[in-house]
């Protein structure tokens, strides 16, 4: 187990370097970031040249990348155009997005799996058809439609929530945005659980458990569910990274100043430092989440062993 973890951690290094290099090149292809800094006019050439030198943009790209990576390992992610260190932006943005992701994942786990179990055990019944239909609707409606609709209904028409999230972004305020963010994945989790459960219900070990005379709830939670959750855990694990980086739409609708907001501004302002910094951290989150998922397999299914 220990050796497995070490091997996986070592494998992360090339993935990390490759991913950051790709992002770095992509942002660079977008062109000269200084051009957008002076509004509807040309920056005067002297100031533009100085800005480029200060930002290290006058050097070749490979050298920029090496300098950048060297600094990243000392914890210096550079400075955004508004003069704030990128680490400071991260310190404000990540806690907010992590909270939002937690809310979303909770929705996926609690509601998604519960609905999945409910429908998986009652296949073909009206409740199953109903939930399936509902998930189909949720999957086919784009997030921004769900978001704007909920915001307008709950926030303006009925006045139950604030349409925007305050700078504090407490858990309570993030419930509706979290639900919106989770909605599509939630529907997938429901469907995955349902199928997986329905398949495993017919397997031998379930029949054995029932034959042993175990009470039904024990059969479901200890035997059936544990085995059926493997694809679901894989999905949720991969989803953590996707939710953190992909919350741009939801964060814009509800005015949440998280990772999506910083990434959006970084891209619009062509701020290499912000974009690469945030994406680097997201890459790490992805890698670690994937590792955790793989380790969880062993917990869920004793047949799976890592050496």
């Amino acid at each position, binding site marked *: 187990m220990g050796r497995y973890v070490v091997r996986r951690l070592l494998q992360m290094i090339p993935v990390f370097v490759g991913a950051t290099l790709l992002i770095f090149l992509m942002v660079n292809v*977008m*062109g*000269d970031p200084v*051009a*957008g*800094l*002076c*509004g*509807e*006019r*040309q920056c*005067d*050439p*002297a*100031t533009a*040249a*100085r800005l480029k030198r*200060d930002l290290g943009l006058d050097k070749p790209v490979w050298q920029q990348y090496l300098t950048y990576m060297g600094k990243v390992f000392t914890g210096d992610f550079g400075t955004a*155009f*508004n*003069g*704030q260190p990128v680490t*400071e932006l991260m310190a*404000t943005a990540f806690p907010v997005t992590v909270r939002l992701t937690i809310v979303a994942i909770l929705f996926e786990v609690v509601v998604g799996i519960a609905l999945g179990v*409910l429908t998986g055990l009652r296949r073909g019944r*009206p*409740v199953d058809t*109903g*939930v399936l239909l*509902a998930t189909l609707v949720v999957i086919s409606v784009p997030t921004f439609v769900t978001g704007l609709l909920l*915001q*307008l209904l*709950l*926030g*303006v028409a009925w*006045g*139950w*929530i*604030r*349409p*925007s999230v*305050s*700078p*504090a972004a*407490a*858990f*309570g*305020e993030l*419930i*509706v945005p979290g*639900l919106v963010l989770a909605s599509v994945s939630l529907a997938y989790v429901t469907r995955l659980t349902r199928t997986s459960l329905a398949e495993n219900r017919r397997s031998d070990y379930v029949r054995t458990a029932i034959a042993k005379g175990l009470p039904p709830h024990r059969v479901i939670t200890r035997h059936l569910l544990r085995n059926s959750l493997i694809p679901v855990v894989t999905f949720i694990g991969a989803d953590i990274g996707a939710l953190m980086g992909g919350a741009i739409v939801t*964060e*814009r*609708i*509800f*005015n949440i100043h998280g990772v999506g907001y910083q990434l959006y501004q970084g*891209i*619009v*302002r*062509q701020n290499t430092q912000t974009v690469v910094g945030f994406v680097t951290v997201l890459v790490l989150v992805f890698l670690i989440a994937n590792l955790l998922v793989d380790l969880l397999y062993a917990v869920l299914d004793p047949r799976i062993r890592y050496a």
Partner: protein
Amino acid sequence: MRRASHTTWAVCTAAVVLAAAGCGGSGTGAARGSVFSASWSDPQNPLEPANTNEVQGGKVLDMIFRGLKRYDPRTGRAMDMLAQRIDTTDSQHFRITLRDGWTFSNGEKVTARSFVDAWNYGASLKNNQKNAYFFGYIDGYDKVHPESGAQSAGTLSGLKVVDDRTFTVRLNQKFSSFPDTLGYAAFAPLPRAFFTDHAAWLAKPVGNGPYTIDSYTRGFQMALRKWGAYPGADKARNDGVNLMVYTDNNTAYTDLLAGNLDLVDDVPAAQLKNVRSDLDGRYINSPAGIIQTLAFPYYDKDWSRPGAEKVRTGLSMAINRRQITETIFRNTRTPATDWTSPVLGAEGGHQAGLCGRACDYDPAGARKLVQEGGGLPGGQVTITYNADSGSHREWVDAVCNSINNALGNDKACIGNPVGTFADFRNQIGRHRMTGPFRSGWQMDYPLIQNFLQPLYYTNASSNDGKWSDKGFDRLVDRANAETDTRRSVATFQQAERVVRDQMAAVPLWYQNGSAGYSQRLSHVALNPFSVPVYNEIKAG
């Protein structure tokens, strides 16, 4: 079916109840007392006066700084603020005397040195200030801010402190309207703390305006409070303003409707058709010093050859401005008939109808002129624009439609969107344009000079198309040297006629500022820079 819907409802209700409980606790919504909240966006640059070149940072500077002059929020006229007198006999040497009794909100006196130090800082190349070129008229600018190479002086030789309340300015050329430019934020005075503890100052700027900054959380919000001891006549009539950062103006508008926000100064285009009923008349739509034009790449032979001016004029006549401003912009823009802005007023140099027939929709005339001019270069024009902000796509498509209809050719005009503003500016800077491109100009100060010189003078800072005309340059130089304001304005208008005859850029429309506000507020108005006049707003 029934069970499923029960479960779903239970979940939703629980979510909503929890959410309601959550927001009851946090009290950052509509502020209490006569403090009100207003929408804001994150300023692009650090909040230094000579480094702020966009409206969002400008809003704050307008609240916390007062300069030598201030532009009257209604007329746009430059009025003396801290300046008691600005004397000159030759439009090149100025002697500026300050009023007594002005201090910064930290108690420090505003002296001649506060100005001279601030201007030297702004002009110096080593400080990377993006508005440095505003000091370009002052003698010695080429030493502190050379176009290439290292700077050979630390301070402007044209600035001299005489005593605590007097300093002199020597310009490198005659510029009669120089005093009127001094209301621009870049010319604000700075306290010593700006230089001695720069980082602390940036975290919480200190100025001499009617408001002080109470707290500033970058990227989230800024709380400004009334400065009780403010010595000026334009005291704040409310206790303060909380500027809240919104990523999307649609969310800000929704918050205004829900009563969580008091003032939105950018009503989203999609809401314009229902804004009057939504807000029950609490909506302003007033002219601002912004004009949108189509510029041309004169570095491209096709557009600089003789006869091309007929093609450009033809294109101008092929655009149905009235229809586009009515249907797409819902009258938040007005068809342009000159190259300035109505906020200048007739005295300031705005002359409605100066463009004449060249700006009237006339399909037959357009076809004829384009043909006489040798047809469209390559048989087609592409209008390049940035698609990331504004509603540029909508109007460019409409303009193209209008041109196609007028010229009777489905492929006469197509739009060419560029992903981001930065990339758009980048391509313009590298002279990659092959056809007309979007060009917007927001005035820095309400003078006709500001609408002409930076845009059409040879090699001027915003002359993106590199248009050049000796006759125009001569007239602008003459107008700048003219000591009599009326004659100066008339000469500028003469120069504007050169722009018209050459159709250097196609004027499209004047842009209005728009704002919506809650029932708590009264006396809301926008100044000619489309910024709310915060200090005059009363909050109930």
